[in-house]
């Protein structure tokens, strides 16, 4: 019998410094382990690239959709709420006002929708290969950034058209972006994990996103909320985020220190909570999915 040794192998595997993995039964809550996520960063990058490529493969207009969708939505809102309902927009033209709110909102909502179903659509991976499961919803969330940046460029074009000056407030944008993303990932982790166990979330998600949108000052100004309700309203972490975006892009009003602080605290809490819940349930994914 011929055992061909065609290609000489790259030598003996190193005997020293070998990785030792201990496989044990686990139950209950475990401490957060985000180091694994970093070790698999190449996979995250490749999954993001896959998501982005897949979305625009075979679409003739490609990136035009990314521009058109939020722009048309903003126009509709501008006509309905700005022109007919005459909602106040804090002295700025309604279109840039709405668009500034939709920037973080679409990132948040898009991430929830994409990541919420991500584990189900990649169920084959989960049952056949090991990698930190968090990689999947996290990369789905981050992939939505592409849409965000395209929309941001549209926003930056809108500003001079509406004679709104660029200000130093813009420097806050990177921080706001990280905040939005952390919030989006935290909630997504929670939803995507539950979706594996209860497919109900697949149907509840669009509804949840819609309700959440009207509970956030996307199409209206936060000033519209009566004083007594403001405290309750601000628990919604998207309030601070949207206020922050409007302040940074449109230089609207005072720096929303309080609502932003609430957002930051809520994002951290939701992120840790989401990740903990995810870790708790992820070990059974392969058996359930």
């Amino acid at each position: 019998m011929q055992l061909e040794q065609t290609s000489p192998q790259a030598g003996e595997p190193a005997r020293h410094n070998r990785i030792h993995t201990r496989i044990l039964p686990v139950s209950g809550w475990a401490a957060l382990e985000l180091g694994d996520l970093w070790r698999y960063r190449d996979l995250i990058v490749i999954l993001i690239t896959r998501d982005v490529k897949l979305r625009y493969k075979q679409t003739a207009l490609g990136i035009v959709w990314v521009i058109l969708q939020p722009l048309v939505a903003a126009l509709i809102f501008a006509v309905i709420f700005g022109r007919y309902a005459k909602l106040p927009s804090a002295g700025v033209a309604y279109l840039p006002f709405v668009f500034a709110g939709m920037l973080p909102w679409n990132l948040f909502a898009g991430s929830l929708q994409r990541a919420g179903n991500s584990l189900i659509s990649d169920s084959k991976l989960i049952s056949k290969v090991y990698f930190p499961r968090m990689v999947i919803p996290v990369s789905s969330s981050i992939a939505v950034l592409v849409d965000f940046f395209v929309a941001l460029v549209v926003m930056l074009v809108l500003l001079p058209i509406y004679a709104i000056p660029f200000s130093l407030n813009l420097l806050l944008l990177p921080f706001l972006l990280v905040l939005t993303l952390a919030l989006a990932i935290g909630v997504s982790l929670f939803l995507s994990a539950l979706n594996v166990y209860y497919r109900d979330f697949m149907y509840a998600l669009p509804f949840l996103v819609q309700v959440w949108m009207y509970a956030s000052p996307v199409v209206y100004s936060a000033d519209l909320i009566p004083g007594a309700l403001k405290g309750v309203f601000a628990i919604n972490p998207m309030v601070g985020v949207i206020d922050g975006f409007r302040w940074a892009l449109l230089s609207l009003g005072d720096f929303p220190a309080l609502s932003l602080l609430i957002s930051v605290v809520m994002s951290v809490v939701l992120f840790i909570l989401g990740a903990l819940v995810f870790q708790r349930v992820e070990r059974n994914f392969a058996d359930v999915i």
Partner: protein
Amino acid sequence: MPDVAIRVENLGKSYQITHSTRSGYKTLQEDLLRLLRQPFSRSASKRETFWALRDISFEVKDGEVLGIIGRNGAGKSTLLKILSRITKPTTGSADVYGRVGSLLEVGTGFHPELTGRENVYLNGAILGMSRREIERRFDEIVAFAEVEQFLDTPVKRYSSGMYTRLAFAVAAHLDPEILIVDEVLAVGDSKFQEKCLGKMSDVAHSGRTVLFVSHNMAAVQQLCSHGLVLEMGKTVFSGAAGEAIDYYLTSGAENIAMTDLSERRDRKGEGNLQFTAVEVCNAHGKPIQSILSGQDLLIRFQYHCNQPAARATINLAFNVYNIYGVLLTNLNTRDVDKMELPIGEVGYFECHWPHFNLRSGIYNCALFCEVNGRIEDWLQSAFQLHVEDGNFHGTGLLIGREQGDVLVDYDWAAQPDAQLAIQS
């Protein structure tokens, strides 16, 4: 003294089987309703614990190639899934020393819309390769898969052969210290299978530790140094590969190798002689549950008869059909001139089938017996032959499964400077 690569201690995995629900996942409504009805009990539906794997302990040394053998549902895949960290064990522990690459499926994560090139990166990353590693080995992978000119075509346009080749190529160029492989060889055309097997033996002979699950005894025979036989989630044998295969083929054979015919009512014939059982045995008369292509076989036909005779003219015959119901052959006493046989009250006839020449698969057999010109017993689907790939030609090479059912002894020669004389 080589180091230990994998140590498994008392490993077990149980599943809760719920009898009431139709699907694996639950709906929120069901759980909420249950909570309302019985707020204090954890579960309303009847549950049963099923142990897919129980008290498994073994050790694999560096450079060992361990074949894991067992029937469907024996727990092989569960074991591999635990060792590759896809699922968690319920009891026990496993220590794995070294980087693990596991291949439980060919082409995991391949996306039809993406091009070959994109899929190589995607699949590589999923299997745990870094971007730089994939870049370094990219050309090798593509050359191995023989898809150079289609690299920028979406894989949905690939033929299934090309798809499999590319998928295997990525996996084959994974460079782990421990490789876990499940049945991937069962794909592709025979030429590619051979190439895969070659690649696998490269890996096996390069000092890496390999865990290999397969139904293909020929592949296990060729690749593995050690064997572990699982049965109903438990280890029933652990030792040298050859012995493990023997054990697997003969274990539990008393039940499976013997087909009980005594309860069969759907028979034709006078009934003075009736078959009660059929047993498939190896050359030493030991019952076996599966036949290896190429092995010597004894098939025994147990009967009882109310007209014993010291000498009768008997035409005993059985037909062998493939799974499509095509008659492959008929073995009988007439053609070999063995019709003059004695009959007792209870006894058996024995058919010797040397160098068994059917390929792996399941074959159905009909049984027939004529005594002194009268049909006594006739049974359709009397028994089955379960055949596994074996070393028929003595070459140790895999035998293609899609190349017909029957194997034939043959050899080749060449006359490079001669011509066939054409007769006019």
